[in-house]
């Protein structure tokens, strides 16, 4: 690289660190500065206008593009993930100001365990640190009364991360204004299979108990609900009540950054009718305008859906 190129990349990374610093400042220390207050008021006006139409109940985010971001600005890979976390807190803030009740984020997939061990360890450490940060007094969770829920096969995580997650869930259990579902060690296929396994085990146990007192032959129904239908097959409700994501309704919008257009095993069952939005921006660069655009798309779609419902 020539000297000129080195200068440019250095100044780019300076600029980038300046943007990141501003974002963290906005979140923590400088909350009372004039610019951040003005920005807050402008945002509230904008959200007030948006709220004249339907606001989505549940938005899901696939946070893709952190590593490409760090490559783009010649940063360490870890710095890309950290910028991603800052972007996440900013987006959460915007969504809670817009009064979106349920938000789901795809933090770590079961497939991601197959990445390089250094990267996986770094991510686990980062997640543990940030989850512990959520429990603090001035975190965004407590500011907006958000209940945190960790969806996924938590047994696959390191002990420290799992404990931090359980602590965070317990600490925020009494919050009720909004729900944040963080998908860690999650894939949708794993979720469905786990739901089937648990439904089978539940039904199997029930059947064994009925069997042991002679009631499984249909002569007497001790289960008490008078349901004479075939109790041995499972139905949709059985599966849905064992899903990790049972705390939230189906997502209205699924946002995937970095321009990739695929679900990557995220909320396959739940997103059957969701609008998919794939801005080409990388996750750490996502901003208010993308959220506004996604909500406007949702409102336009809702208009047609309501119109169709009235026609039929």
């Amino acid at each position, binding site marked *: 690289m020539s000297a000129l190129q080195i200068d440019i990349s250095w100044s780019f990374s300076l600029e980038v660190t300046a943007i990141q610093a501003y974002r963290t400042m906005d979140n923590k220390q400088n909350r009372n500065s004039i610019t951040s207050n003005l920005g807050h008021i402008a945002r509230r006006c904008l959200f007030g206008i948006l709220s004249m139409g339907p606001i989505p109940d549940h938005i899901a985010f696939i946070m893709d593009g952190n590593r490409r971001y760090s490559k783009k600005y010649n940063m360490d890979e870890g710095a890309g993930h950290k910028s991603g976390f800052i972007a996440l807190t900013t987006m959460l803030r915007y969504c809670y100001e817009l009064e979106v009740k349920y938000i789901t984020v795809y933090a770590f997939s079961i497939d991601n365990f197959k990445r390089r061990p250094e990267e996986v360890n770094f991510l686990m450490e980062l997640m543990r640190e940030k989850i512990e940060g959520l429990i603090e007094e001035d975190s965004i969770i407590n500011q907006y009364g958000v209940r945190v829920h960790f969806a996924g096969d938590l047994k696959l995580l390191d002990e420290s991360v799992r404990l931090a997650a359980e602590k965070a869930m317990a600490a925020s259990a009494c919050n009720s204004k909004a729900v944040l579902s963080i998908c860690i060690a999650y*894939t949708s296929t794993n979720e469905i299979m786990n*739901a089937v396994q648990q439904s089978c085990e539940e039904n199997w146990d029930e059947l064994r108990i009925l069997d042991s007192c002679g009631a499984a032959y249909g002569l007497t129904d001790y289960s008490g609900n008078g349901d004479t239908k075939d109790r*041995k097959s499972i139905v949709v409700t059985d599966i849905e009540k064992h899903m990790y994501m049972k705390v939230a309704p189906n997502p209205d919008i699924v946002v995937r950054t970095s321009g*990739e*257009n*695929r*679900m990557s095993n995220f909320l396959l069952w739940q997103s059957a009718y969701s609008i998919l939005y794939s801005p080409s921006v990388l996750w750490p660069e996502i901003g208010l305008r993308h959220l506004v655009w996604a909500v406007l798309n949702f409102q336009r779609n809702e208009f047609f859906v309501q119109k169709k419902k009235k026609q*039929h």
Partner: protein
Amino acid sequence: MSIWQKFMLMIMAIIPRWIISMPFFQNLIKKQEQVHRKAFENMVLGQSLFQLNDTTTGDDKPLPKGLQRELMPGHIAVILDGSRRWAKKRGLIPIEGYQAGVTTLGAFLSLCRGWNIPIVSLFLFSSENWGRPKEEIDYLLELFEGSLKHYLLRYCNKFGARISVIGDTSAFPNSLQKAMKQIEEDTKDFTQLHLILAMGYSGQSDIVHACQNIAMKVKDGILQPEDITKSLFEEQLQTNVTNVQSPDLLIRTSGEIRISNYYLWQSAYTELYFSDALWPDFGEAEFAKALRSFQQRGRRYGKI
């Protein structure tokens, strides 16, 4: 249409509704429907839909510029959306949109065969489509039946394509169900192309049925709950008619950006492509654009 028929159409367009309900006019309307039906039968049986000339016998066609043969998808799924909007844009009735859709489908399938795409899944009729007006559904089902009995059968014989029908077909008329079984039987030995028609299909029902099958196996003691694996689950899905159950590329026309309860489990790692063109306008250029977009994507499956 003859001049007399056009004249009758004009008269019926300007007469108010309460007169039309009189028996005399009802007879005229029935006659019109018979004319439509005759035209439809001619279309399905006739050669006008068959856009290929006899020189193309299913040999490889040259790929358009910019496409590489090694990167072609092995399984493409298509949601054929937008036929009614296409007809509405042109001031036609929805039924004519569907007819145009069938023409486009023929061209699309011959492109797939020419470019050696082994498996193609088509989302023809969803479980949600039952909410459409009755006449439209009846017409659509007749169109399917006619296509299955004549047009698609001819296509399969010519190109060596095998057809499988998936979905909940119990709500369809018996004649259509018989036609589906018949074409599956007639084409089961062909190997050049595998066509999967999703009719009355719902991704969520597919998963639920697979769950129920597995639960029955657990109940009968054949399987333990902890032995349920992904491949075992996939064997129970309706797409077990093929080895490559997951599509590489899912194309949805007409600009709607959702999956609408099509392949859910199967499309976990599928590249999605949303085209703004309505289905009857989805020609070779649009298809090549979709394939070009697919070939430029980096598929990492979360691992790299």
